[in-house]
């Protein structure tokens, strides 16, 4: 049998790649599971030569909770609530991904109002997610103040979500057959206030970070990822787009009301950290555009097409649908045997694939670069481990 089962020890103790006469003894360092810049409980085993990173081996599983197994034991609504905890910074997108596959498979109908609300809240959450990323990115690069400014503006969106949805992080708002509540009467007004506010703050973001010479020096040319490698490694979302591939499911397979709005897909050129940074900054602006087009044109209609207590049954077969979360493509494979709970459910999460790009990027860089690269991928660890 040609199947080799190896161990971590075997993996990391590879051949020394140091060839220069000046090179020194290589050593291993564990980065994580508790490390401030791994954004959770990711563990990276680094092979270092002084400050230079020779190899990065991610070790996962420190927050693997078996969501897929749990999905097989509950019904579809209960699974929607579970995926909130997967990519918690984009809980609504996760809700929608599962909802989408269930609705598609069970052929449930929705109204334009439902779709408009879903599109709106998801775009708002994309802004929210990128705000947090921007703040944390600043902190990972050593500047503390961006962190506070990013979170300050994120808090405004939290308020809007609290009013309409009643939760700040784990929403469980988008459900098969509709949305949990209709929007709050103040929603339109609040969102407009927020957009005006945030548009006045974005130039400040640029002054503080984007135009800062230290930031540019630290990001430019660091962690390059070519388009071919990005595709081969299955990267999606801003990571892929920064490498120059204009792949955005909102454009290529429009769902929700994305086909009715006008927006651009920002694309980078070289796929370095700066491109990824810039793509996300630009995405915030595009999301503002989308929200602006939709906010005044929310159609009338029902917000829940089936009774909340109604049981959902999905016809037997394999169903798949995917969507664009702030971090990339979230796909859900739903295998049903016609019962109330899925036979097998698998989530193709964006961070899982994006994480592996770090090995490609980091080799040859410095520890400081590694932190910038990790941050520019914008990882959410529970989304990787599920």
């Amino acid at each position, binding site marked *: 049998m040609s199947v080799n089962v190896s161990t971590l020890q075997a993996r990391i103790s590879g051949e020394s790649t140091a060839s220069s006469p000046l090179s020194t003894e290589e050593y291993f360092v564990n980065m994580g599971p508790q490390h401030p810049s791994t954004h959770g409980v990711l563990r990276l085993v680094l092979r270092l030569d002084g400050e230079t990173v020779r190899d990065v081996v991610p070790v996962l599983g420190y927050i693997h909770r078996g969501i897929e197994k749990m999905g097989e034991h*509950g019904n579809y*609504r*209960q699974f929607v*609530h*579970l995926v*909130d905890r997967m990519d918690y910074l984009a809980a609504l997108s996760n809700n929608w991904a599962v909802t989408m596959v269930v609705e598609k498979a069970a052929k449930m109908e929705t109204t334009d109002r439902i779709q408009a609300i879903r599109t709106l809240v998801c775009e708002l959450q994309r802004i929210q997610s990128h705000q947090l990323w921007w703040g944390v990115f600043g902190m990972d690069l050593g500047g503390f*103040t961006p962190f506070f400014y990013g979170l*300050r503006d994120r808090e405004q969106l939290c*308020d809007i979500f*609290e*009013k*309409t*949805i*009643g*939760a700040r992080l*784990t929403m*469980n708002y988008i459900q098969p057959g509709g949305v*949990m*509540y209709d929007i*709050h009467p103040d929603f339109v007004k609040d969102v407009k206030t927020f957009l005006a506010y945030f*548009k006045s703050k*974005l*130039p*400040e973001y*640029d*002054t*503080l970070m*984007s*135009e*800062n*010479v*230290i930031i*540019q020096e630290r990001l*430019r040319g660091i962690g390059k990822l070519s388009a071919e490698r990005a595709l081969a490694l299955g990267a999606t979302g801003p990571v892929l787009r920064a490498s*120059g*591939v*204009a*792949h*955005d499911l909102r*454009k*290529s*397979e429009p769902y929700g009301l994305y086909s009715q709005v*006008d*927006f*651009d*897909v*920002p*694309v*980078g*050129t*070289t796929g370095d950290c*700066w*491109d990824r940074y*810039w793509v996300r900054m*630009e995405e915030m*602006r595009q999301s*503002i*555009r989308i929200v602006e087009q939709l906010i005044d044109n929310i159609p009338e209609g029902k917000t829940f097409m089936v009774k*909340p*207590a109604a049981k959902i049954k999905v016809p037997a077969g394999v169903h798949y649908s995917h969507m664009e979360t702030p971090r990339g493509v979230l796909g859900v494979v739903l295998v049903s045997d016609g019962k109330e709970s899925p036979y097998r459910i698998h989530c193709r999460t964006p961070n899982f694939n994006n994480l592996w790009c770090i090995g490609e990027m980091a080799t040859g860089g410095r520890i400081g670069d590694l932190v910038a690269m990790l941050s520019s991928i914008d990882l959410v660890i529970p989304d990787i481990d599920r």
Partner: protein
Amino acid sequence: MSDESIAAPEVLPPPEKHVGTGGAVTGAVPWIDKSGAIGGVFKGIRSLFSGMKVTVGYLMRPSTVITQQYPENRETLKLPDRFRAQLAFNHDDNGYHKCTMCRICEEACPNVSIIITGREKPAVSKKEIDSFVWRLDSCTFCNTCVIVCPFGVLRFDGTFESSVYDRRLLAYTLNDYAGPVASVLEKIEDPEARKAAMEKRDPYGAHTIIEALAERQRAKKAATHAAYAAAKAARIAKKEAAKAAAEAPAAEPAAEAKDVG
């Protein structure tokens, strides 16, 4: 739109055309031009100063401080109506609830945070609730129970202050009394009889019910183990039978032929 800031494009190859991705922005990524060394240095230094201007701007304007001082502002702190932090029972003005013990919420709850026990000897109607246990410690505030309840028994409050030193205190009994629903109670004319039908329930003590549940779970676990073992044995038997059937085809048709003959 502040597209102007990114409009100044360097000469870059246009991105490869892709199906369905019209209107893609080219990578007009702005950065400080380092080609002129001296000019670049001055631009860089200026960017540092403009950053410093932003931060000091906030320092100079105390009105930008947006901190809400939580324990001090408790009276004025108003949470949105829909905020979910504490499950509560809707009791009407008489203190009667409407829970008919249909158990829809219990079934819908994703992680068994709601445990309903019925009274062993219902006083008036067929089914009467004994205690409606809600586990705050495991609740995920998904609101499913509230939206599925056909009678509007439950609601979510915004009372978030419930930190404790002992996690057993986080199991609440939500109903004020054990007994029939409001409509049944209102039919009873005699106030004494009404009172007799209602048995007071205190918010605490629910953890014994949870322990009982855990006991039941252990029993169930043993049962599933047995079921798994049986299924496995059946599968192996089936497989062996299939194998035997596959191995024996040479003999079987001959026997059949003999019978026919």
